[in-house]
């Protein structure tokens, strides 16, 4: 450990600083004098392009979501091939945060300050995005259509922050209403994932039931990596819960239903839309899934009578061969669609402020893959608020109601 080692350190750090400094250099050279002044002066917007950035778990424990941005990317490519939005092509820069909150801060700062994106679009995850949404709002950078159903994004409404999917408040409330309307006079139990997502859903379910004096007899939680839920199931069974909310991601939901069947526990199961996936029939088994009630807001993948779903399959085939169509790719496309619509409405003279105004001006817009009317306003930054009840039955997941609003 001689002094000499410091030379290496000094060299490396200086090199690092030089590199940082180099990347600092403005990328776009100033327009030569005498030429026409550029028409747009907004960050991330050039004459023929718009730069959007996102943070996504492309690696690590939550990498199953990594197909969402690829679904969006496919749709952007399709739009670009059609000539783009108001003559500009969309460039979508995906940064990997590995679902680690400190890295989210880092990559979002990089996108904003280094890459100079026009907006952050569809940043994924509650724990990760929690780190950045207030900072984005304070710096007046549009934080568009967050890929998380947490209620905190819009509680209160922040000018530059927009939610996307129906939030867990909608889900919790609608599932509770199903119990009140269709399963009266029974006792309810709650089985939730011990994290932001699970607690959010359980909270709204519970509040709605309480208002209706619907009894809740048991609350059980679990850690997301757990593989055995028998003790929770037996507790729910012993408490005689006849209606059970399942607020968990697909694997624990499937494990719970399979183990409940094995333990002979029968109840009406109300499951979050997050686990609304046909793969559940293969994991939990068709008999365990029979009769499970869930929610949905995007059309099912195998519904080929739906032209938008057929288009989705074709687009994936064309722009991302090898990418298996799944619920997450549909989700990615839905997010990209509303982003494109917002950009289109913001017009050719695109600025961040105009983008926000355009989003807030969307009224009764139905031309999306979900086929539901989207309305927003200065006090409403939640584009999708309606869901339909669905039921697992006979190897299919079928709609059993029309769109329900919270």
């Amino acid at each position, binding site marked *: 450990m001689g002094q000499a080692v410091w030379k290496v350190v000094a060299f490396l750090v200086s090199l690092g600083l030089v590199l940082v400094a180099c990347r600092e250099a403005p990328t776009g050279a100033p327009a030569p004098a005498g030429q026409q002044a550029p028409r747009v002066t907004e960050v991330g917007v050039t004459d023929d392009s718009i730069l959007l950035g996102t943070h996504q778990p492309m690696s690590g424990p939550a990498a199953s979501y990594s197909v969402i941005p690829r679904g969006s990317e496919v749709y952007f490519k399709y739009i670009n091939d059609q000539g783009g939005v108001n003559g500009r092509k969309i460039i979508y820069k995906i940064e990997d945060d590995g679902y680690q909150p400190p890295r989210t801060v880092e990559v979002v700062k990089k996108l904003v300050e280094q890459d100079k994106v026009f907006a952050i679009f569809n940043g994924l995850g509650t724990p990760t995005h929690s780190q950045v949404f207030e900072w984005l709002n304070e710096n007046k950078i549009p934080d568009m259509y967050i890929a998380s159903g947490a209620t905190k994004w819009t509680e209160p409404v922040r000018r530059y922050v927009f939610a996307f999917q129906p939030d867990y408040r909608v889900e919790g409330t609608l599932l509770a209403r199903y119990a009140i309307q269709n399963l009266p006079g029974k006792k309810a139990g709650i089985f939730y994932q011990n994290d932001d997502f699970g607690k959010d859903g359980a909270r709204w379910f519970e509040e709605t039931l309480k208002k209706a004096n619907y009894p809740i007899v048991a609350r059980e939680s679990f850690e997301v990596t757990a593989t055995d839920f028998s003790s929770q199931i037996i507790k729910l069974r012993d408490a005689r819960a006849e209606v059970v909310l399942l607020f968990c991601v697909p694997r624990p939901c499937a494990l719970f239903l399979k183990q409940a069947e094995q333990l002979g526990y029968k109840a009406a199961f109300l499951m979050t839309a997050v686990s609304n996936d046909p793969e559940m029939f293969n994991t939990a*088994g068709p008999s365990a899934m029979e009769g499970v009630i869930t929610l949905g807001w995007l059309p099912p993948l195998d519904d080929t009578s739906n032209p938008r779903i057929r288009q989705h399959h074709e687009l994936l085939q064309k722009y991302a061969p090898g990418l298996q169509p799944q619920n997450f790719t549909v989700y990615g496309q839905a997010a990209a669609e509303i982003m494109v619509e917002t950009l289109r409405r913001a017009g050719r003279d695109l600025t961040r402020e105009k983008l926000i105004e355009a989003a807030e001006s969307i009224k009764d817009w139905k031309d999306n893959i979900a086929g539901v009317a989207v309305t927003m306003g200065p006090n409403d930054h939640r584009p999708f608020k309606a869901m339909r009840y669905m039921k697992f039955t006979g190897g299919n997941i079928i709609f059993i109601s029309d769109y329900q609003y919270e």
Partner: protein
Amino acid sequence: MTEGQLLSLAQQVVSGLSAGSIYALLALALVLIYQSTDVVNFAQGEMAMFTTFIAYTLLTWYGVPFLPAVALTLVFAFLLGYLVERVVVRPVEEAPVLSVVIVTLGLYSIFNSVAGWVWGYVPKGFPSPISGGTVWFLGLTVGLLDLWILGCGLVIMVLLHLFLRRTTLGTAMRAVAHNRTAARLVGIPVGRMLSLGWGFSAMLGAIAGMLAAPKIFLEPNMMAGVLLYAFAGAVLGGLSSPFGAIAGGLLVGVIENLLGALVATELKSGLAFFMILAMLVVRPQGLFGTVHRRKV
């Protein structure tokens, strides 16, 4: 305590045994590699997951029938373990324990990441000769799949015990793990024994993975919740005894469930830590292990 409460407590124990059987199987693989190479393999769970995906691919993509697919997977697992030892473990064989631990952590990352890349993260079902169905016994319900897993675990345990204690190869492997220099002096081919140890334990891991997958579903992170409990089971029972691994794994499952039933279900996972720590402090060789004195 009423009869109903007693019954549900008994059910918690039975269900604990079913969860514990998964921990026990992986713990067996950990014991085998520790017994044959003196290494604790942090990548054991990921290798099991990876080889199970190979079986899945053979079954669903290539339509190979069940038994040949299992046989091919075991061959693949053996080769994988053998090669891993030869290529990446051998160079750090004489290095401190730390180096070996770090190499197995590197393997953990590689297998996990590559599996996610190739097969995706959607949980998949896995076929099993015995699948659904339950039997009722004294008012308790027992899954047939659980009985099958537990039965296989017990058979493997007996075979492993006989192999390690009664066969020349097994004794030679233990000798290598115990004292490499002495083993070399009596003419045991140390290098080959180590490779075989990795090969066999990878095979055992593959069996554990294929037995567990119908129950806990196949996905790259399937072992995340299992590995730590398997360690707890192995440490509880003693890293040196196949019987201890099975008993330890089952015990972890039962204690976990009872604690969840009587205290709070949120405490289930923190428990593994306290069991490991308490056991290591009180009796480092485990309940059924033998003292393995190391040369300084």
